[in-house]
């Protein structure tokens, strides 16, 4: 019998961890000389207090659902994919090529084409570290980090030398043709109060569909079973006839593909052209999102929403309290990873004791 009831494992512990992370963040804010309660109020009202705020919050959350799912799928195979940042950058390249060089008649077809492009390029970028891990035993954490650096150098090269609009100084591509523009929240949700400025677009629904797809894959298919079995115990999986190489490759390709899909939201949906650093750290946020969400799609969506609130709230906070720069969000993100990922036992062990004692008394 488990020491903890299920609700405590999936609800109570993440909430306690989150509370600890926020408490330490409050100390940091207090040290800077601002009022933490006031800062929190500003963040919440700035992110979910208006339709304007929601338009940004859900846009950020969409990015984080993609990158969070990417990390989560790899986690199920006990692979730590820190390369979401680079895979999403390359996904941006795939989306851009699909949007710029294929004359799409309608945005629905462009969405499909760009998704395929983004996922393929993201997966390809994850394939090399995956193969090196599977066949050469090189540590996937370090290789994926190196691939982030290589990806950003590659994108700078391509944008400066190849994809730049001739005669323009800015290292960015031409705007995508009108037919590839995705309907924004204003187009389908004006009745909810979304304005023209809202970056939220239909990629949000693609993200939710991906979350459902990942749930089906992991818990309802043979492949998902094999991935989880491999993650639980490699020797047992090998004994059951599961090929480690195949699982590592497949899990990482799916992971990279999901990270690449982020570009549909950020590059095709929002920027409508490819710029330098189109990912802006969302690949790294995915790590915190997957840990916080316990690698379950529902948890990932909720955690992504939380980080969407943090990002949009953080931007508002920087506007109202200039003493707090946007790196505050990176600090909060680090503390969430620390408390939910690494210091998990600090909360879990005392809680387990507490529940055991209560149960013994009840018996």
């Amino acid at each position, binding site marked *: 019998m488990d020491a903890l009831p299920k609700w405590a494992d999936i609800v109570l512990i993440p909430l306690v961890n989150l509370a600890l992370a926020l408490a330490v963040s409050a100390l940091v804010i207090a040290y800077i000389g601002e009022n933490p309660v006031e800062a929190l109020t500003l963040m919440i009202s700035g992110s979910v207090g208006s339709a304007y705020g929601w338009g940004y919050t859900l846009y950020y959350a969409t990015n984080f659902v993609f990158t969070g799912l990417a990390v989560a799928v790899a986690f199920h195979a006990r692979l730590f994919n820190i390369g979401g940042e680079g895979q999403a950058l390359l996904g941006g390249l795939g989306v851009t090529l699909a949007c710029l060089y294929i004359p799409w008649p309608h945005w629905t077809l462009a969405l499909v084409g760009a998704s395929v492009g983004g996922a393929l390029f993201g997966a390809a970028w994850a394939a090399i*570290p995956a193969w090196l891990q599977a066949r050469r035993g090189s*540590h996937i*954490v370090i290789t994926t980090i190196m691939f982030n*650096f290589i990806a950003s*150098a590659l994108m700078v090269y391509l944008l400066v030398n190849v994809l730049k609009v001739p005669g323009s100084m800015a290292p960015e591509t031409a705007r995508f043709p009108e037919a590839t523009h995705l309907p924004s929240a204003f187009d389908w949700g004006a009745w909810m109060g979304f304005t023209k400025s809202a970056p939220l677009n239909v990629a949000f629904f693609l993200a939710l569909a991906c979350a459902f797809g990942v749930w089906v894959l992991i818990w309802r298919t043979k492949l998902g079973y094999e991935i989880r079995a491999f993650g639980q115990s490699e020797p047992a999986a090998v004994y059951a006839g599961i090929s480690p190489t195949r699982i590592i490759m497949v899990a990482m390709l799916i992971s990279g593909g999901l990270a690449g899909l982020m570009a549909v939201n950020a590059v095709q949906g929002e920027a409508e052209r490819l710029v330098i650093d189109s990912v802006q750290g969302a690949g790294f946020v995915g790590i915190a999102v997957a840990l916080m969400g316990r690698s379950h799609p529902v948890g990932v969506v909720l955690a992504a929403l939380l980080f969407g609130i943090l990002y949009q709230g953080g931007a508002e906070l920087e506007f109202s309290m200039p*003493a707090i720069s946007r790196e505050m969000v990176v600090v909060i993100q*680090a503390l969430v*990873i620390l408390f939910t990922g690494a210091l998990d036992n600090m909360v879990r062990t005392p809680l387990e004791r507490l529940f055991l004692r209560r149960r013994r008394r009840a018996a």
Partner: protein
Amino acid sequence: MDFATLVQVLDSTLRLATPLLFACLAGLFSEKSGILDIGLEGKMLAAAFFAAATAAVTGSAWIGLAAGCAASLVLAALHGLASITFRGNQLISGVAINFLAAGITVLMGQNWFGLGGRTPQLEGAARFQNIELPFAQALSPVPVIGPLYSQVLSGHTILVYLGLLAVPATWYLLFRTRFGLRLRAVGENPAAVDTAGVSVTGLRYGGVAICGLLCGLSGAYLSTGLAAGFVKDMSAGRGFIALAALIFAKWRPWYALGACLLFGLLEALGNRFQSIQVLGVTVPTQFMQALPYILTVVILAGFVGKAIPPRAGGEPYVKER
């Protein structure tokens, strides 16, 4: 490449290899004790910031160095707490430390100095000054050996020489002392060390603390020796490259020196030759800048022979009850 250029490249090789070398030896101590540490990068960055910030305020590079080491030790203690005491995932703890350092350095820098996360430019005694080795002037007219001695070996900050001395010191500590033997044992078979009545926890905290101290030296050198002040994300992946160098060196101190010099040479070449022609094709700048990262991947791919890490690395030790 003429001889004068070669001397210049070798000179900056030694400079650029030093932060890698400190970080690589730091990783060596941690990993030999069975604690994986991908938070080298974060510890370097935190040390670089606190060293530069303290040096800027006090005007002393030495007080800055102490502050940098202290900051790095605090993060090392956090890593120890997460991975030794609470038996958490060591990779995740390292990732968290990297983000924490990336955020807190800019946040504090903006709060203290208001320069967008940079520290003020360091001058005079707030920076480590270059030291002239004995007879450098006298020997410099001697052909070949003269320039190599007076321009490559001489004229660095004291931290560069400290880094070179740290290599034999590490070798001695790990392979010729009782502490070193126990540290290596705890990374291979902690249960055996425990059975012998030696504290696994104590030894691992020891390894992690030495790691923190060396990362502190590495970071302080970055901001107060190599550069003149802190800029955002100045460690630029050096912590990860140091880990790759450690694997390349197969966890041996002298080979670590060689590996770090190789990575230093690559970086020096990338800085010196922004674009070079190879067989009539111009190699782009971005490729030269990405070269250390690409080489890291190639080395990790094991095209250099099999590297066997300490056996208990990454696994928390659970005492039997």
